[in-house]
């Protein structure tokens, strides 16, 4: 299992612990009547209990933490949850991941949800 978990490059089951760190930032954008409005992650965090709230709190700026690849796969559900926070037509969640101390926005991972049929 540990070896297999390296197939996706993550080593997610290989007891990597705190061996690597990275910087992450989150951007939330909502579509409202054809306009794109930014939503503050920390405000969104106040509406969401549990670990997802902790993930969003203070995520407006880059933060250093252990590498956690699972976050990248959960952006669509997060966008769906943000849909319920306002009269949004659609929500886009962007996770920026970069090497610590690097310049620029790094790699982007995007999740989207349509809030209305």
């Amino acid at each position: 299992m540990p070896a297999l978990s390296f197939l996706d490059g993550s080593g997610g089951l290989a007891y990597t612990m705190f061996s690597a760190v990275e910087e992450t930032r989150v951007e939330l954008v909502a579509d409202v009547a054809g306009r794109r409005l930014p939503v503050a992650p920390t405000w969104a965090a106040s509406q969401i209990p549990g670990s997802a709230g902790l993930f969003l709190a203070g995520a407006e700026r880059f933060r250093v933490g252990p590498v956690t690849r699972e976050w990248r796969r959960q952006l669509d559900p997060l966008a769906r949850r943000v849909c319920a926070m306002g009269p949004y037509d659609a929500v886009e969640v962007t996770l920026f991941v970069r090497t610590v101390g690097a310049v620029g926005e790094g790699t982007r991972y995007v999740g989207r949800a349509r809030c209305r049929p």
Partner: protein
Amino acid sequence: MTTHRTLGLLRVVVGGIFLVRSTPLIHLVPGLFVHHGGPLLGWPRDGRVEAAVFGLVLPALVVKALVVVRTVAALAFTIGLHARVAGIVTVVAAYLVYAQEPFALIFTLHVLYQTTLLLACGDAVGALSVRPSPPRSLASSLWLLRGFSASIYLWSGVAKLRGEWLSGRTLTLLVQHGYADSAVARALLGTPQRAAASAWLVALVELALPGLLFAGRTRHLAIAAACAMHAVFEVTMHPDVFGWVMVALLGAWFADDPDGLAHLPTGNVQRAPSAKAKHPEPPSSRQSLITRTNSQRPSTHTPLR
């Protein structure tokens, strides 16, 4: 202590850690990661993000039921009431609940659940149990746990064979960003040189531990080194119950090779006088292990040579 009792004791200790980590008992122990929301780990709250690992999103009612099942089963596992079934149910329920929190996946819980599963599947369900189960193979149960603990150190050491870690930069960043904030952490990791030395030391110890543990002569040294390393982790990084589980697993290395068959409460386990008679000299520890394992299966018993 006999292998039989050691395995039973490991079950009780790991089950106890499981109960502390997943119930309100956690509030009695300072420094642990307190659950979000309810009194039981993973209890779903209104307004949660409906996400899960592998998309295994479950309704809140089902998650609540699984949390209750997990807790009851963990208690049964700890006291040894149908411990094998209880342990397996505990882990299945725990992983399903765990999957509902994809933003909080941590190795501590993964290691705790895997350890519980290995104990449940092996002969840890016999001793110190309300309802003991007869052992099937003490040797393989013990070596499975030993191999598991050694593999964790090995994989963890391999993951640290990176320039970023070995330069000490990763540790320095963890200190700067509050992941290691004690006076001990600042003393050990406060300068780039100390951080680099600590990083090398941790990687080397983790990589060396499997070999030192498996080699009988250096086993006690390895156990002492591992305990010291976990103690330093505790006062610097506070890694939840990870150190507790690992130190508990190290207990498997304290047991001698399976030698407790004479004390077992079951009547269907035979010692191996015939094998002993064929070997006038005392058998080596490996021979002893094989003999006693085979003795549990008389129909497949074969001479050692």
